[in-house]
């Protein structure tokens, strides 16, 4: 409350300044913001297992307002959950302020007080971020200072608590997070290297959390929970002509928590990515090792709650519905080893395979297994859980993902996109389904055809097929979309689980929507059946239950 009054006062000052000094543009304040309102009603539908909350409808709303005046910025976000849309944390409720901050940003000094988002390096040690469409917000509430003593050097310090919940106001998690980060761009610091083709960036961070801990008992031994847990990370970024390389290593000291079963083993993670690209061609290779790296500001928290670091999956982020929402992979924080590679190539225009407009091809391969561990037995197992033998693959397969995409513009009117996916997906490790525990072997094919019959009128059709003998069996999806640029879109989609071994579950999920865009505003109205699935944005996924009803989504920016 005090803080919101402080923000209000600052806004008042900013406003009075802007009124006292009319005239030139520089003296005027700037306001940016965006709003989103998402409404859904829920009808009963036993066949698809749709859930109907007591209120029969739900609505999420937020509005961000950022006001900048010279070197000062103040921001507020109003949030409202009346009640929260199914699939969002159902403990989110009421209306109020979900974020507020003030920021001073001069040439080399940037201070924020209140809520803020920040990432150190690749995020292995620290990342706070906001993903409103998934209900994820682990914002810090405290202070952030960014200082650039000279060109090419950036120092950051963060101190605060993390947002955990929303109940008409922000509710912060139990622990306190402190972190520092430094990054040096050698080519900017060392003058003679300024124009050298080899660009090198070095960085390091230290992040510590505090949460008062008591003792707990296991097998009649008494353990003390550590109050302070620190993680240190170092990173390197190199760019040389057409090559790029980035790597980071993080080490965390003993951190008994709900994810790891309260063991005292150290946590470690390594991430490497190398890439080469030139006009028409790109290739990447990545490797990732994660051992006991769940790092949260509340040791008892799980899932999406108060994560301090960010360890995204090494598999590709898929976009077509069946591939993206039935078997999406997420990093196993307790331990995994993974590799991936990608290739992008465009066959040149006027070549045999390129045709008139060129042909784009991409191939992506990823494999993730368990850690290579062994039991240690006795008291050591009680304390540390297990022992890692090597950085190599363990015996349990977590995921295999191979996909090939071909995109071709045939002429001015027609273009075609084809993708084939092959998955091997361990649903014991990544529990995306309740119907099957084991490895799902799936082949997915997608064909996406677009026909632009007038400059502003297009029809697009998608056919998708998923073939598997496991889990829910085969699926097919058909989608037809008509767009009238720049305002209108109309789409109808049918998903059919024709291969389900339970004949009552061979249901058609028919869904239609209409969208209207104007400037920075967009409204979408949809109606129909949505199947239960995993909804992903960027690197993060959340389970969404089956539903049947109307959905209205309004977004606007200013």
């Amino acid at each position: 409350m005090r803080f919101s009054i402080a923000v209000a006062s600052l806004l008042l000052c900013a406003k009075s300044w802007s009124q006292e000094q009319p005239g030139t543009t520089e003296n005027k304040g700037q306001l940016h913001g965006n709003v989103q309102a998402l409404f859904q009603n829920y009808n009963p539908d036993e066949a698809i297992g749709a859930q109907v909350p007591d209120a029969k409808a739900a609505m999420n709303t937020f509005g961000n307002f950022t006001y900048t005046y010279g070197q000062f910025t103040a921001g507020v976000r109003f949030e409202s959950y009346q009640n929260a849309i199914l699939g969002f944390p159902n403990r989110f409720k009421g209306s109020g302020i979900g974020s507020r901050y003030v920021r001073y940003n001069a040439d080399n000094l940037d201070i924020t007080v209140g809520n803020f988002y920040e990432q150190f390096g690749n995020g292995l040690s620290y990342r706070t971020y906001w993903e409103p469409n998934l209900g994820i917000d682990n914002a810090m509430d405290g202070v952030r200072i960014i200082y650039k003593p000279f060109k090419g050097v950036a120092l950051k310090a963060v101190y605060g608590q993390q947002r955990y919940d929303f109940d008409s106001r922000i509710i912060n998690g139990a622990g306190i997070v402190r972190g520092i980060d430094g990054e040096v761009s050698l080519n900017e610091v060392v003058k003679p290297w300024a124009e050298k083709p080899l660009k090198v960036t070095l960085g390091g961070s230290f992040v510590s959390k505090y949460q008062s801990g008591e003792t707990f008992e296991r097998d009649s031994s008494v353990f003390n929970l550590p109050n302070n847990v620190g993680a240190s990370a170092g990173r390197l970024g190199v760019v040389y002509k057409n090559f790029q390389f980035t790597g980071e290593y993080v080490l965390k000291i003993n951190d008994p928590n709900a994810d790891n079963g309260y063991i005292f083993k150290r946590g470690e993670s390594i991430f490497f990515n190398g890439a080469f690209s030139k006009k028409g061609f790109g290739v990447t290779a990545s490797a990732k090792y994660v051992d006991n790296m769940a790092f949260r500001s509340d040791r008892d928290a799980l899932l999406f709650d108060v994560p301090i670091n960010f360890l995204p999956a090494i598999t590709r982020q898929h976009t077509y519905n069946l591939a993206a929402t039935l078997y999406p992979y997420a990093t196993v924080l307790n331990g995994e080893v993974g590799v991936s590679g990608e290739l992008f190539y465009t066959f040149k225009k006027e070549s045999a395979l390129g045709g008139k407009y060129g042909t784009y091809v991409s191939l992506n391969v990823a494999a993730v297994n368990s850690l290579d561990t062994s039991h240690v037995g006795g008291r050591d197992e009680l304390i540390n859980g297990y022992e890692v033998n090597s950085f190599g693959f363990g015996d349990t397969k977590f995921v295999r993902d191979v996909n090939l995409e071909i995109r071709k513009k045939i002429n001015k009117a027609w273009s075609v996109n084809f993708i084939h996916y092959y998955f091997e997906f361990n649903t014991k490790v990544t529990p995306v389904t309740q119907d099957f525990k084991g490895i799902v072997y799936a082949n997915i094919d997608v064909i996406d055809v677009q026909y632009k019959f007038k400059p502003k009128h297009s029809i697009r059709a998608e056919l998708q097929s998923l073939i598997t003998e496991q889990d829910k069996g085969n699926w097919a999806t058909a989608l037809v979309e008509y767009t009238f640029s720049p305002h209108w879109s109309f789409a109808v989609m049918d998903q059919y689980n024709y291969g389900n071994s339970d004949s009552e579950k061979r249901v058609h999920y028919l869904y239609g929507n209409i969208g209207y865009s104007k400037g920075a505003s967009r409204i979408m109205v949809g109606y129909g059946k949505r199947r239960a699935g995993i909804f992903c944005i960027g690197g993060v996924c959340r389970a969404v239950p089956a539903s049947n009803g109307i959905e209205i989504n309004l977004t606007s920016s200013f």
Partner: protein
Amino acid sequence: MKKSLFILVALFASVVASAQVSSLPSVTLKNLDGKDVQTADLSNDGKPMLICFWATWCSPCKKELNTYADYYEEWQKETGVKIYAVTIDDQRTVNSVKPYVNSVSWEYEILSDVNKTFSQAMGVNSPPHTFLLNGKGEIVWQHVGYTPGDEEEVHEQLLKLAH
């Protein structure tokens, strides 16, 4: 609490009424060489700029920028426009940005907004979201989403600025 909320709402309403929404907020992004770029410093010698938010996992975004690529040379000749393609790919996919961009031969300035600081400061809900700035760096037009044919509208808006 309710009182302070009310004060805030009232203040914002009055600030909205008096504020001028035009130029870019100041955020530090990285270019493909890993070098810091200040968004407030983006400029194009008094000519228009397009700022397009996109991601490697966003199909309509890639469709939009692949289409603009077909017209970019022509638009540049007519209006001198420069396109900044700001990727909001996070750590999962950001390392594929440069290889992808090169493979499709985009000639845009690519900037990486890995923690979405800039996109949030610009009020972007979800990509694609395109902003058109005039020669003074003021936002004069914006568009959410991409449907085939939107490039005609962009072209019309660019010509309006040029003449």
